[in-house]
């Protein structure tokens, strides 16, 4: 089977294999992505993030179902952390999303972070493009908002939603700086718990202080995802944000920025790998390091020298 043709002709198997190819950096990955690229740019991408235990997976599951009710097809990429000790991972989100497997209009793919150097953003971005080319209307990328690379992924979505829950205590302070500022909308999940009103006020206060959201005031929705409550309003808010982005011509700007980020990241990645292979992994480099250690030479000239040679 030709994987590219398969993806473009709605073969779920081909889509699955194509994502594996980019995830594992198989030899055919670049070829696949090259052929796929012209067919991308049609899906609307939603990023969902929030602290562990916020109920993101359940919420994602319910949002997907709501989109299905509205006649849209949905691709989901759920990212879970790789254990730094074993290199293994438990990709547990399947537990919540299983009743979605019976629906042809939904495709759920788990991905492990595989350490920070794995080019996760790019791999997730490629997976999004593959789902886009396959023809999903909406693509949801869901990830724990703990590491910078996870945050980077959802940041590049068309609409980014931050999920929080009441009763996290000081945790909210810790994550405030990291993820609260990237939200185009906020969802307080498990909103039947004590502290919901207080959390609502806290987010509002933070938004007052944040000048970045001119023209769009991020709405704060309340859900009890486990009971399916408040889900329609969240999808309505996402759609409103989308309409705003289109009317204000922000959408094309966001996507332009995304492309720029992606290409920059690809370049960085390529350069890093080149340097790793051709500079860092050489015996000459080891000798340089030894000389540096006994202060025979200094690093500034060394770097200038290497850059001069590599980036001629």
């Amino acid at each position: 089977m030709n994987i590219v043709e398969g993806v473009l002709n709605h073969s779920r198997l081909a889509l699955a294999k194509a994502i594996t190819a980019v995830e594992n950096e198989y030899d055919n990955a670049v070829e696949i992505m090259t052929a796929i690229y012209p067919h991308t740019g049609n899906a609307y991408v939603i990023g969902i993030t929030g602290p562990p235990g916020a109920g993101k997976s359940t919420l994602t599951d319910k949002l997907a179902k709501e989109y299905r009710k509205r006649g849209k097809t949905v691709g989901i990429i759920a990212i879970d952390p790789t254990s730094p000790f074993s290199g293994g991972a438990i990709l547990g989100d399947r537990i919540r999303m299983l009743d979605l497997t019976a629906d042809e209009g939904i495709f759920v793919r788990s991905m492990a972070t595989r350490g920070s150097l794995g080019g996760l953003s790019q791999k997730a971005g490629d997976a999004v493009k593959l789902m886009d080319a396959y023809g999903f209307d909406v693509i949801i990328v869901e990830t724990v908002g703990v590491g910078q690379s996870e945050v980077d992924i959802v940041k590049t979505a068309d609409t980014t939603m931050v999920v929080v829950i009441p009763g996290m205590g000081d945790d909210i302070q810790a994550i405030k700086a990291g993820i609260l500022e990237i939200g185009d909308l906020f969802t307080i999940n498990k909103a039947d718990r004590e502290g919901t009103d207080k959390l609502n006020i806290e987010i509002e206060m933070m938004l007052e202080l944040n000048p970045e959201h001119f023209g769009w005031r991020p709405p704060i929705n309340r859900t009890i995802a486990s009971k399916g409550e408040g889900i329609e309003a969240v999808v309505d808010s996402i759609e409103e944000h989308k309409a705003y982005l289109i009317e204000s011509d922000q959408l094309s700007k966001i996507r332009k920025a995304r492309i720029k980020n992606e290409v920059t990241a690809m370049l960085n990645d390529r350069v890093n790998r080149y340097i790793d292979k051709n500079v860092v992994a050489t015996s000459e480099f080891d000798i340089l390091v030894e000389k540096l250690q006994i202060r025979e030479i200094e690093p500034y000239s060394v770097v200038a020298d290497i850059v001069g040679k590599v980036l001629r």
Partner: protein
Amino acid sequence: MSNIRVLVAKPGLDGHDRGAKVVARALRDAGFEVIYTGIRLTPEQIAEAALQDDVKVVALSLLSGAHNTLFPKVVELLKEKGLTDVLVIGGGVIPDADIPGLKAAGIAEVFTPGTPTGNIVEFINANVK
């Protein structure tokens, strides 16, 4: 890097998931990427999850005695979906007499109670395609 992805799944109505969870964790600690499905899955749900997550291994656990019906059904559905190179293994309360039949139906190996998790890891590493 090509991490081996394993779907650990419980077909049927059996809720005894101690073994499945212990195996899932042991596989994670051995460096596999493990997708654990939880209990009460239909063979169709298992096969579809295996497809979407493009796993190399499907590990089935069942203690209710329904293995002769449900294990071969998963294998059949995987094939129907074009997943021909997936390694399917099984475990649980499975009498020796049933094992040849299960193997003939495409279950690569059956691990009965008392199996060290290390044996499962070894088997996967040796047999995954």
